[in-house]
């Protein structure tokens, strides 16, 4: 039974990744997103036309991606819709829920409030890049499973990345401090006591 649910999850993820990839391919034909090859010349001329896209290299989970982006695109939408990295979730899209939390140069940020063009030159880590290898979970991921620190799971990628940063910042000293420094991540299912317990466990394993 556990094996079956495991394989179902993997299939769903592969399905979504494939769909995301297809969307990314299709997006280049939309007006405004343009053609990556044409963009540098247009950009060099300092275009006064906002339809001219920006050529940006984003470093996501250690891998460089050259993209042609509308200035309006958020890092969140770019991760999900252009790169197929759907682990980062869109909750409120206004910086109020924390579901879209990613690490930028190791610090936690809200990808919905960051323009993707402003992520150039930064190291972005999403939930897909947190584990050290495909067969090992990060201690925080394992702790969330061990403590059943979620129900629906929608806020979980943001919770986990925020929690990793919380520990690294040195703000996981006690339960009160964990609660205060995790207040930017809302859990609609109210798994808060379990989340606090998971962070406490992972903190020890992360050597903090």
């Amino acid at each position: 039974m556990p094996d079956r649910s495991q394989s179902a999850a993997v299939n769903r993820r592969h399905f979504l990744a494939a769909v995301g990839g297809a969307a990314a391919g299709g997006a280049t034909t939309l007006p405004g997103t343009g053609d990556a090859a044409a963009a540098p010349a247009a950009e060099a001329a300092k275009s006064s036309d906002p339809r001219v896209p920006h050529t940006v290299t984003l470093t996501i989970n250690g891998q460089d991606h050259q993209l042609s982006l509308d200035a309006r695109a958020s890092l969140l939408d770019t991760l999900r819709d252009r790169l197929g990295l759907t682990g980062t979730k869109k909750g409120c899209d206004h910086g109020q829920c924390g579901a879209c939390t990613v690490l930028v140069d190791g610090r936690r940020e809200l990808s919905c409030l960051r323009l993707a063009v402003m992520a150039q030159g930064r190291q972005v880590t999403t939930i897909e890049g947190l584990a050290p290898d495909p067969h090992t979970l990060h201690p925080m991921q394992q702790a969330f499973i061990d403590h059943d620190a979620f129900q629906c799971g929608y806020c979980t990628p943001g919770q986990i990345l925020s929690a990793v940063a919380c520990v690294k910042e040195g703000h996981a000293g006690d339960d009160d401090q964990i609660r205060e420094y995790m207040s930017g991540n809302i859990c609609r299912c109210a798994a808060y006591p379990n989340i606090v317990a998971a962070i406490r466990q992972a903190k020890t394993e992360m050597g903090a």
Partner: protein
Amino acid sequence: MQPFLFDRAGSVAEALRAVSDATVIAGGTNLVDYMRLGVVSPKRVVDINGLNRETAALGRITLDHQGLRLGALVRMAEAEDHPGIRAHYPVLADSLALAASRQIRTMASLGGNLLQRTRCEYFREASWPCNKRRPGSGCAALDGLNRQHAVLGTSDACIATYPGDMAQALLVLDAQVELTGPGGVRLMPVAKVHRQPGATPYLETTLAPDELITALVVPASPWSWRSRYVKVRDRRSFAFALASAAVALDLEGDRVKQARIALGGVATVPWRAEAAEVALVGKPLDQTTARAAAVAAFAGARTRAHNAFKVPLGQEVLVQALLQAGALQPPPPTTRNGVTHA
């Protein structure tokens, strides 16, 4: 979101050339939200985050015997975590730690935090009349839902609350902003930065359109360690203040020599409560004098249908802040970052 031109400024000079006809972006936590809501629609946005590569001081915190200098591009979280600021300017460290969420504080610059919009929910929702968003369209809050709104410094055109926390701390520390413009650099007291709404609520600051905040400058004072920020919210964390108070006290024995008091969550601007300061000077600090000062602080309050509770709440918050500041102990002479203070 309306389309816009995006550019990066590589130097302060380049940023200054752009600033009068473009919107500057640093952390973007306020601006991107409003652009997405259609509340603001700049034609051109200039990213100034690269400026500290040319001018390192923009991203630097320096603390010495003369005081504290915070580059405008320092992030709220960096200042919040600084051990010297925590030891010598606790009101500032607390005002930062109690603001927004850690993710937002990681992104938001100090210059941008000071300039965050004075706002209410009717401002954020573009379908309502709002004299701040659409001058002359009216104010939906006056006779609308106004529980969050200001009771001090209001006008018939706008009753939105200044929502920030850090500005109140800067007020009680007598801080100044360093402004860089085409004519050079000037210092201006933080107390002069914000404008009350009057008939022009869309004008929120006194900054010239071609000026950029490049630093916050906090003078050292022998009693800045005796400072405190107390904030009360609808929930315990990650919410705007219903009422807050920043205080800094110079005590001689138990007597107040000087007091600085600023209120948040209750006013249209970071609100210096001078009448309350005067009420305390020369008196011993206790429940009775603190309460008298709190009453003086709200003497001019004008309440609306849903926000009258802010007067007693704001008074209580101020009493707590004063008594807590009075009970503080001085920091050890040497702090972990190696800066020695007398």
